[in-house]
């Protein structure tokens, strides 16, 4: 089986600071792959590189064998990659369900003519899109917010809403940037269930997370970053027993 995401020799420098330096790893389809590391280790930078928000200084990222060099985030979305953000990116000028429907943008074939004259084909598409979005919101556990303005929703609900939006595109791989940040114990447990359910559906999940319990429980493999470099890579068991990791991160 070839790797879904293949990163080789990735380097990103901001001025003289190397946020990510010489990072290589690969993610197999269907895995839950987590990136951990202390604050400032370069985890979010790595995600921004993979999702096309930043351009690498050096190195290469391949998605399904295709180099993502020069691809814009929207072109990566067309190729099956979706993500959420540590600093949530929700359109506060829309309702909750509209945010999720926005996530289905690529699945809708709308043209200007049918839009302006509101032809039946458009109404049919919109109806099924709305139904799909509603199902997804129930799937992530914010079904009660359908027509709530996004600006009126709680932090925890918005976090789940962002995941629903990312799933709406039916991505091959979903990148979750600190989905558990700011959630309480119950919410984190619910999130763990949700990530499992997403993975069970065959979607590859990449995760940046601080919550060690969550990460160790659900990941197939882990990548540990420290000062922008790879400290260790392996199964949760290997990571837990790696002396470098224990020294640098787990504080043992």
């Amino acid at each position: 089986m070839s790797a879904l995401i293949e990163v080789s020799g990735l380097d990103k420098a901001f001025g003289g600071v190397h946020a990510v330096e010489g990072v290589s790893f690969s993610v197999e389809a269907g895995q839950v792959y987590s990136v951990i590391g202390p604050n400032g280790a370069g985890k979010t930078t790595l995600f921004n590189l993979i999702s096309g928000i930043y351009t690498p200084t050096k190195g290469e990222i391949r998605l399904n064998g295709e180099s993502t060099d020069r691809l814009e985030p929207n072109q990566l979305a067309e190729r099956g990659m979706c993500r959420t953000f540590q600093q949530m990116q929700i359109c506060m000028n829309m309702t909750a369900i509209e945010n999720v429907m926005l996530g289905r943008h690529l699945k809708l074939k709308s043209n200007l003519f049918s839009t302006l004259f509101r032809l039946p084909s458009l109404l049919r598409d919109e109806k099924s899109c709305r139904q799909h979005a509603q199902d997804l919101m129930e799937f992530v556990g914010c079904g009660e917010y359908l027509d709530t303005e996004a600006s009126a929703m709680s932090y925890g609900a918005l976090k789940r809403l962002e995941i629903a939006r990312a799933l709406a595109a039916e991505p091959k791989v979903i990148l979750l940037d600190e989905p558990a940040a700011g959630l309480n114990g119950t919410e984190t447990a619910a999130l763990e269930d949700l990530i499992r359910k997403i993975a069970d559906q065959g979607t590859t999940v990449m995760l940046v997370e601080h919550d060690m319990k969550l990460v160790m429980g659900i990941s197939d493999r882990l990548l540990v970053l420290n000062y922008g470099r790879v400290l260790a890579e392996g199964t949760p068991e290997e990571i837990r027993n790696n002396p470098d990791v224990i020294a640098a991160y787990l504080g043992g």
Partner: protein
Amino acid sequence: MLNQFMQSRLRGLIVLAVILYTIPAFLSNPFHYDLATQMAIIAATVVGLNLLVGFAGQISLGHAGFFGLGAYFTGIMTGNYGWSAIPALVVGGILVGILAWVVGRPILRLKGHYLSMATLAVGFIIAIVINNESQITGGPDGMPVPPFDVFGWELSPFGSYSLFGIELNGSQAWYLFAAAVLLVAVWLAQNLIDSPIGRALRSVHGSEVAARVVGVNTARYKSLVFVISAIYASVMGGLYAHFQGFITPAVASFDFSIVLITMVVLGGMGSTMGVILGAVVLKLLPQVLTHFQEMEAVMFGLILMLTMIFMPKGLLPTLQMAVSKRLKKRAGGQA
């Protein structure tokens, strides 16, 4: 759910239609009708501009340029080349749309103030060209424009018509026509907003990075809405030219661009009905404040500032919020 939504969409349009067609009961002379007709045409322009400013969050300070181009294209083609009004409006709209596409591609890469400055420059260039090409445009003296016509039938403010047996003078007929145009403009704008394209546009405003990671080609959508709002302005400019019968470079001026954007901000960015109210208020204001004629620009600036400070959401949304708050309070008091 969808049915309910459809109903609420139609409700707005029906309310607007009822208002537009009861207004004549309060109008007594041709001057009133002319003013109302101007309002309707300007309101339709502003509805188009609102798609760009209110929904996609991109500021254009040169929209009068597109309005002026539409007005002059129609004026020149019907006046000098004997075209009929409809083809002139359509071709003018297409050409202005193409122009907006060409200048929009590079401009819309800019953000915030830079985008405003660039559209400002485009507006100025258009105004300068109209002023200087006096052989075709009449320059600062302006040029006459023939009345609006469809298949040889003419709609002139000085004609007299009969509709379903009711005798109408030209001003009344023009008002009814302009009101219908406004309704169509609102209907099209609402259809656009309430669609996948509309969601993509609003997401550009809400969070551009979110839009991009779900696959929205934000550059393409920004260009699209820029073109659509320019076409709105061009077609309305053309109608305005036919209605007025005479146009001067003022229709393409910077001042007029500012008036248009003030209407959007005052009425309520992102509220289609709101910006119509904005257009009505700002068109009425000079009539009420005739004493401050020389201070008009100052007044507009002041209104823009006060709106931004005290009603950042705009006139209609603020009113709606106040009303719904009061209703809630009353309901709470009874319980």
